[in-house]
């Protein structure tokens, strides 16, 4: 692998920043040049959020643009749909089936699109879906959705599991480490 472009998309507050930190640490451990570009501030209040993680021999722009993502981790279904244009044709998308209604849907001016997963699957081959919220709940912490999804990604990519393990231990706060290790393993075995 000479380069890898990963995007994390979701809803502000879903823990996308922690996931991007772990992915950044992994790239670093594998001696890649790496850039991680995050969104702080306003959109963290329930808005649509995106993080870019780029590994390679030399990274200039921290952004991933349309058609350039190798992997997209989608923390929410509508956000998966919103960002599909960014996936390259052979790219992989891991989608949490959770639905979070944005305000236009709550106020009734828009409808949550139906059949999102099938629509995406018709166009792209490498699509994996799961109910990460349910798995996180079973592990004892609704907030561990992010780590469940990383578990799935770990199972679907060639990066050694030990590196994942180290990166999580270095990044996750000690008091929630056990729940998160459990969530990671549950994700790893989910699909």
């Amino acid at each position: 692998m000479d380069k890898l472009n990963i995007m994390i998309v979701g809803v502000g507050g879903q823990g996308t920043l922690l996931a991007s930190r772990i992915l950044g640490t992994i790239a670093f451990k594998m001696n890649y040049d790496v850039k991680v570009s995050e969104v702080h501030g306003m959109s963290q209040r329930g808005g649509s959020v995106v993080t870019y993680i780029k590994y390679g021999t030399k990274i200039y722009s921290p952004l991933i643009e349309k058609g350039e993502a190798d992997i997209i981790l989608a923390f929410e279904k509508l956000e998966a749909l919103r960002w599909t244009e960014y996936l390259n044709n052979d790219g992989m998308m891991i989608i949490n089936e959770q639905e979070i209604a944005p305000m236009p849907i709550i106020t009734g001016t828009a409808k949550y699109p139906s059949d999102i997963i099938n629509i995406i699957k018709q166009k792209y081959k490498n699509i994996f879906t799961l109910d990460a919220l349910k798995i996180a709940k079973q592990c004892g912490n609704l907030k561990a959705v992010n780590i469940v999804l990383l578990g799935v990604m770990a199972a679907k990519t060639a990066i050694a599991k030990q590196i994942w393990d180290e990166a999580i231990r270095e990044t996750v706060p000690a008091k929630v480490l056990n729940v998160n290790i459990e969530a990671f393993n549950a994700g790893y075995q989910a699909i």
Partner: protein
Amino acid sequence: MKRLMLGNEAAARGAYEAGATVAAAYPGTPSTEITEYMAKYDEVYAEWSPNEKVALEVAIGGSLGGARSICSMKHVGLNVAADPLFTVSYTGVNGGLVLIVADDPGMHSSQNEQDSRHYARAAKVPMLEPSDSQECLDYVKQAFEISESFDCPVIVRLSTRIAHSQSAVETGERADYKIKDYNKDFTKYVMMPAMARRRHIEVEKRMLALQDYSEKSNLNSIEWGNKKIGVITSGIAYQYAKDAFGDVSYLKIGMVYPIPEKLIAEFTSEVETLYVVEELEPFFEDYIKKIGIKVIGKEVLPLTGELSAQLIKEKILGVKQEVNEQLVENIPVRPPVMCPGCPHRGMHYVLNKLKLNVTGDIGCYTLGALPPTESMDTCICMGASIGTAHGMEKARGSEFAQKTVAVIGDSTFIHSGITGLIDVVYNKGNSTVLILDNSITAMTGHQPNPTTGYTIKGEVTKQIDLVKLANATGVERVRVADPFDIKEFERIVKEEIAAAEPSVIISKSPCALSKDVKFEGALKINQEKCKRCKRCLALGCPAIVNKGDFVEIDEALCVGCMLCTQVCSFQAFEDIAEKAGAKNG
């Protein structure tokens, strides 16, 4: 050792390694983390100041007192701090003085996208601009050196993609910086006309010396490649240009002011076609054109928003990336929302219900301007709500004032709302001002402020008494209201707008994200009791979901603030018998 670091963390590290001991700031995305990281160093005194002007004045004091001092802010913060900036440019410094300003092209979290480079030129202050985290560290260190060598403040300009991107950084040791002696010298530090006239001459001499420095500085560098194309660029635009053009020749400008004129001429003479790639304003471009060099820039690149590698390729090289179509048209947008349990929600619901005119301000509560609450008519800059309400009253009369309220957060009120309130009292206005006291600066990620009771370092301190403060300005009607008690809140608002004198309502309830706020846990809707009237949707709560035929609670989002139970006439909102044990864990 190399580490992955956010640009903001690296900038703080640079100040630390330079031996800085004073750091002052007012929060603002994307600059906030710089000072949060400064506060983690035991050797550094760090503070959240009430606003950017005070922050810069504290840093100036630090510098004149002999310490290396740093002050950070977002781009619009520099408008607030512009007054001290323009004159500290005249006095110069004692210990090094560095000001970091973070621009927000694309307006990820801002009300405008002004380009701070104009300030460097207007205030005659040098400005550096790093292009990744390593340079954030290195440039801040170098900025302290420049500040002391040339006796001036130095601005380091960041942008969102630099401040909020992580890349590898090699850290170093902290310098053993000895605090400088304090020298009284009124000819240098007391800017009255006679002294200031002399200092202005010094400033102009300094600019020439800095110009010379810029020509030779390692901060500006040429990377020779294919000479058919030459690109002059800086900061994040350099990174986009490298991806877009590949092997061409680059003049990377790290010292954006003063601009290295001779170096530009030398570079230009060797390339066939010259482009300037810069975000926002044609700052380099105007300058280069002024010295008679032909260059292509903003006639093809946009003046608005961020650049990107694909955009540059398309606009300059005419190469358009093939991309897949959106799979579905009109995907519903997802604007930010007030959190479940947010104390601002009840207040917005009441303002909307009463159909008031609302002059607004900046903070989480600004989100109430969007549907469904739509209860804010204006938002200009921090502190503007009160003056704006007063001006409207003077334009339209007291009847209009009795249907108008100003809405302002606690941090914003302290920042620059107090003076507006004083104006209302002094100039015989009748405005009703709602101060939304959640006792924290929430929008920028929970920084403590004078209403919070502790400092950036977590030390307990005095908590400002907003009631007494409002009384002291001359407002006699000051009420405290609970925004989770909708009926009572509505009653108080009605009484206060009717009063023919100024009044202040303090809407008091802590931010839902504060550690000590505990709600009961998620509710559910009893579908048999629910009459589908959908009145609860007027709250704009992200946890109450419109399913078309029915309404449902998103258990993963609902915290159980109980606001919905007050707007429902059918008692349809109920406790979930078994509460999910791990919630909020």
